């Protein structure tokens, strides 16, 4: 045997299964005339890890917000169960059990984290520069290089306290993409209200910090980086800092208002009341402002504690 651990081989096998699911789902969506964009996965592995070794455990697909509900129907038709971990509104995770014992997961995205522009604008911008890439026996759409760079920077920020993989992806993307492509990425980020997040994500690595400066991105999100890196960090404190970091009154308003209007699927996930039929769902929406208000105090307190000078 060569020098591969069992874990490496399992990860490779899982990536192969994920690729197969990707082609199955993308094909099924196409038959319903739903365009999807494959995020990360092979689009990162093939681009940034030509030597191999970059594996992945699920399929991330983005569809137009207008097609989202129909796309969930397609997934259900393919045997994927009710979405789990749908506590965030940008994507829902669908799972399908396998005889092999591990679930195959599809994260269906309507938008991406940190973009403050409305989801239809995000889709419009990201879907306008796509490329195609071969996965299995299918050509699938993936983000263009500038949009991929933007996504990788924000993905590193999103998972800053988890594995090192997203930062390594970003480090490679900083070197692999041209300065022009990063300029384009910054432009898309600004247009979609994600400049601050892009700057913060880039600042997670030294090469990215220098690039951020060259791109003229201001790193106003030092606070969010400290919060993200803190073992005390939790959702409300993070959201509070995003609010304080917001670059415009409009962005602040969106950060306040968007959580009130999560989809019914998300509402059922986060609220037991919402699972009690239509009346329960309506009551859950009515109670939502009060639920969120109750989180503000603890969130502010945690934020203050983390940011307190030491």
């Amino acid at each position: 045997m060569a020098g591969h651990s069992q874990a490496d081989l399992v990860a490779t096998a899982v990536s192969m299964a994920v690729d197969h699911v990707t082609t199955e789902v993308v094909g099924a969506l196409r038959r319903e005339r739903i365009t999807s964009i494959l995020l990360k996965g092979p689009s990162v592995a093939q681009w940034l890890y030509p030597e191999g070794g970059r594996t992945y455990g699920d399929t991330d697909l983005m569809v137009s917000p207008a097609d989202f509900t129909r796309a969930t129907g397609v997934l259900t038709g393919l045997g994927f169960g009710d979405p789990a971990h749908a506590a965030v509104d940008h994507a829902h995770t669908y799972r399908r059990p396998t005889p092999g014992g591990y679930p195959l997961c599809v994260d269906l995205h309507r938008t991406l984290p940190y973009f403050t522009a409305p989801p239809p604008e995000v889709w419009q911008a990201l879907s306008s520069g796509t490329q195609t890439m071969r996965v299995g026996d299918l050509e699938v759409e993936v983000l263009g290089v500038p949009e991929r760079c933007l996504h990788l920077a924000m993905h590193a920020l999103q998972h800053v306290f988890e594995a090192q993989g997203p930062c390594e992806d970003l480090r490679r993307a900083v070197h692999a993409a041209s300065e022009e492509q990063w300029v384009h990425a910054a432009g898309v980020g600004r247009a979609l209200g994600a400049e601050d997040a892009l700057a913060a994500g880039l600042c997670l690595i030294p090469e990215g910090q220098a690039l951020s400066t060259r791109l003229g991105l201001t790193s106003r999100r030092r606070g969010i980086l400290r919060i993200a890196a803190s073992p005390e960090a939790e959702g409300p404190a993070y959201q509070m800092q995003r609010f304080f970091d917001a670059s415009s009154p409009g962005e602040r308003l969106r950060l306040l208002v968007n959580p009130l209007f999560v989809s019914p699927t998300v509402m059922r996930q986060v609220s037991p009341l919402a699972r009690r039929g239509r009346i329960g769902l309506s009551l859950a929406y009515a109670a939502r402002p009060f639920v969120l208000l109750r989180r503000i105090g603890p969130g502010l307190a945690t934020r203050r504690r983390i940011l307190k000078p030491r």
Partner: protein
Amino acid sequence: MTDFILARRDDLEARTVDSELVLLDLRTQTYMSLNKTGAELWPLMVEGSERPALVEALRTRHGLTREVAERDVDALVAQLADAGLLQTEHNGASPDPE
């Protein structure tokens, strides 16, 4: 009478990791990895090969004695058959004449 060894092609994905080969059975979502020797013999089995041809290929490439090569081929074939990844014909005729 010789055994004709033919790998299953349907619902099977194969991916090389350096010199090893990972096989994923899409019917069961289970995987098997083949070491360098197994990975070398796999393409011959995908095309379809007689057992003596596999033994000879192993002997030639690795300078093994016939006895050792036969033992290794038989072990590999048994392992793949157990996993449901082979079709084995016992009449010496290729099941796919084209």
